[in-house]
């Protein structure tokens, strides 16, 4: 699939739902969990709040803030009519003329100050979130290529972690170094969770905590390359790992392998989660396969659409080729604490293809 085909699909859905206009809005606060309908419709990652209006005839208006970013947007989206605006709400509403059937996307994720103005001005607009994000449930060839590049960057970031992680270094220092390193490799953004403890309860954002010998470093390394996120989840021990830790990590990797094996076209996403859980339940960790210990076994990869959604028992999404998502058991075990283990996969007709060159394995660095 390419970008034009995706847009054609969205327009066909608009016609089916009798929508004259699709209004997609994003506040510019880019976040891994917050899909960006403006990126889905335009591919453009804005600095500030932005809107894209897709008309029934295929014309696109792209409204960007700050106003001085319009030239960059126009270069990126040569087929769109680009407007630089001071206020994206006023500018977007000014583009909606007459009594047209409007579908909206992204409004629920907006801050109240923006969302309330759209809601007041467009009382009869219908939510079109499902239409927009479902259309982007599979990735375009460009997005897949970018995901591969991001996966390579993530792995090189991880190599850097192994080079420099040492006792006495703070989590923040390590995280900052990795972020910078991956930016030099092309990552324009990075959702990098990194923490260290002898017994982690979860993976968290870094703090000033100083890494100690015996700590287990958890790193959820998530660079974005040209607007496409990819992630690897890794666990590193400072010093010699205990036999128990080695054994438990093998278990988690085995669970991940089963999840990867279960991911095939035509299978519901819930089955991937079930396959992972089965391995852990068989070892007596059934109670740790549910909240509060674990919420999901993976997730989609944005920034555009986060479809196919979470690798979770309640996700009935049927998998299709060219879906892109994470499979990460990321399990809390009482003996070892939280362990990170996860790979990005692209679904092919034959099953899940790992985007990484080296699969997660427990690694020890000098303590």
């Amino acid at each position, binding site marked *: 699939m390419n970008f034009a085909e995706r847009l054609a699909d969205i327009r066909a859905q608009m016609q089916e739902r009798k929508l004259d206009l699709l209004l997609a809005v994003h*506040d*510019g*606060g*880019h*976040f*891994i969990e917050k899909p960006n309908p403006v990126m889905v419709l335009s591919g453009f*990652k804005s*600095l*500030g709040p932005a809107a894209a209006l897709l008309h029934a005839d295929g014309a696109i208006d792209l409204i960007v*803030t*700050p*106003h*001085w*970013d319009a*030239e*960059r947007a126009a270069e990126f989206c040569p087929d769109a009519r680009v407007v630089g605006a001071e206020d994206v709400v006023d500018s977007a509403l000014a583009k909606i003329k007459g009594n047209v059937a409007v579908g909206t996307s992204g409004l*629920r*994720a*907006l*801050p*109240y*100050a923006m*969302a*309330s103005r759209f*809601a007041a001005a467009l009382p009869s607009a219908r939510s079109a979130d499902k239409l927009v994000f479902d259309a982007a449930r599979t990735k375009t060839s460009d997005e897949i290529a970018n995901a591969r590049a991001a996966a390579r960057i993530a792995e090189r970031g991880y190599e850097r972690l192994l080079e420099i992680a040492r006792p006495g270094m*703070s989590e*923040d*220092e390590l*995280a*900052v*170094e990795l*972020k*910078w390193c991956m*930016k*030099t*490799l*092309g990552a*324009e*953004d*990075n*959702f*990098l*969770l990194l*923490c260290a403890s002898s017994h982690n*309860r*979860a993976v*968290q*954002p*870094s*703090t*000033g*905590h100083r890494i100690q010998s015996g700590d287990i470093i958890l790193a959820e390394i*998530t660079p*974005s*390359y*040209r607007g496409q*996120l990819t992630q690897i989840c890794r666990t590193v021990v400072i010093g010699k790992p205990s036999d128990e830790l080695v054994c438990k990590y093998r278990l988690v990797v085995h669970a991940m392998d089963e999840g990867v094996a279960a991911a095939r076209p035509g299978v519901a996403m819930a089955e991937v989660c079930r396959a992972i859980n089965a391995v852990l339940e068989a070892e007596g960790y059934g109670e740790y396969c549910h909240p*509060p210990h674990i919420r999901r076994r993976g997730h989609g990869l944005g*920034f555009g659409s986060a479809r196919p959604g979470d690798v979770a028992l309640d996700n009935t999404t049927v998998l299709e080729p060219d879906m892109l998502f994470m499979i990460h058991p990321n399990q809390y075990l009482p003996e070892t604490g939280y362990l990170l283990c996860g790979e990005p996969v692209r679904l092919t007709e034959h099953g899940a293809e790992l985007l990484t060159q080296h699969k997660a394995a427990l690694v020890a660095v000098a303590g």
Partner: protein
Amino acid sequence: MFTSQPTLLIGPSDWDAEVMPKTEFTERIAALWDLYPEAPCAIVYGDRVHHAELAYLTNLAPKLEAAVALLFPDGEPELHVGGGPNMIGAARPLTFVTELKPLRGGEAIGRRAAESRARRSGAPLLIGGGYMPTALRQDIVEAIGEPPIDATAQVWTLMRRTTKYEQLAMYNTGVALGATVDAIVSAFEAGAGVTDAVLAGERAAYDDGAQDVRTLFSLNGGHTLQPFTAPIEQQVDPLQVYVAVRRFNYWAEGFDSISTKPQPAFDKAQDLLRLALAAIKPGVDPADVEKRVVTVMAPYRPHPVTEGALVSRIGMALEEPPHTNAGAPLQAWEFCSVRVGITDSAQNHAIASAMIRVRDEGLDVFWSAAPNPIEWRPPWWDKHTD
């Protein structure tokens, strides 16, 4: 200035009592109660994008999930942190507040606020409510039972008065800004490509203890600015850059243009920057400063990036209200970024800026893209750095 907002804040943000003692925060909160003596509590929202008010009152700059502070005139503050119980540990080092709880939704916050009305009957305060997701805000308001008072603007007014601790934090952030720009200049002079030069600056900022650094650069001689989207090996001359550095929750920013050749446009921008600085003192309307500069700008006109925002207040946020020159006159001890951008709409463009502190008799400059920005006077920060 708008920059590309990262998906996660990565960098040292732990609360340091030596940099910003707890008394700083308790005095700020007390000033809030002075303004609203009937208010039983304040609900303060912040997320990783918008959190200036929350950071001002609690030091917490949320790195990942949003947080809500509940402040009481006669009780300990509470922080309700998003992401569940497992995120409490990562939030604890970032704040002086000791009562940390998982954020359980708007209804629970609203109920807690409503309970506090048993002690004072006024409406609760809401700060940063415009940044809240709609559902969270609605749940809070419904649980309170009446609309809260939006005190966001009043907090911004309080933030304009800076203490010696804040001034020292800003000064140190300015030092990091200087190191950042110097590193970009050095890399440029060593022949680095555009993004290598910018990344050399970012590296220097982090080495100087920055908790965040944002950059923009120009590939067309300052006509437009763009964020990093991918490595660019080409060299451009002149290299117009924008750098924003954050330390101790305070931002400093700078525009500079680097070249191996004479830059008439940048020379002009520097001259106009000096003119602007000479006009700044307490009581002056920022719009009047811009008018004075524009009057002598010919043959150039204001650059779109800085037009209407020549003097911008800066501190806990890169974009501080009112975002433009409109608004209150300047007052002593507030921090501003002064930016002069010019363009002839053809080949010549430049933006130069300075970081200043307004003071009784004029201003202090603690970073400037123009040499000799003001008549020399002893550096104001000497007393802080003995």
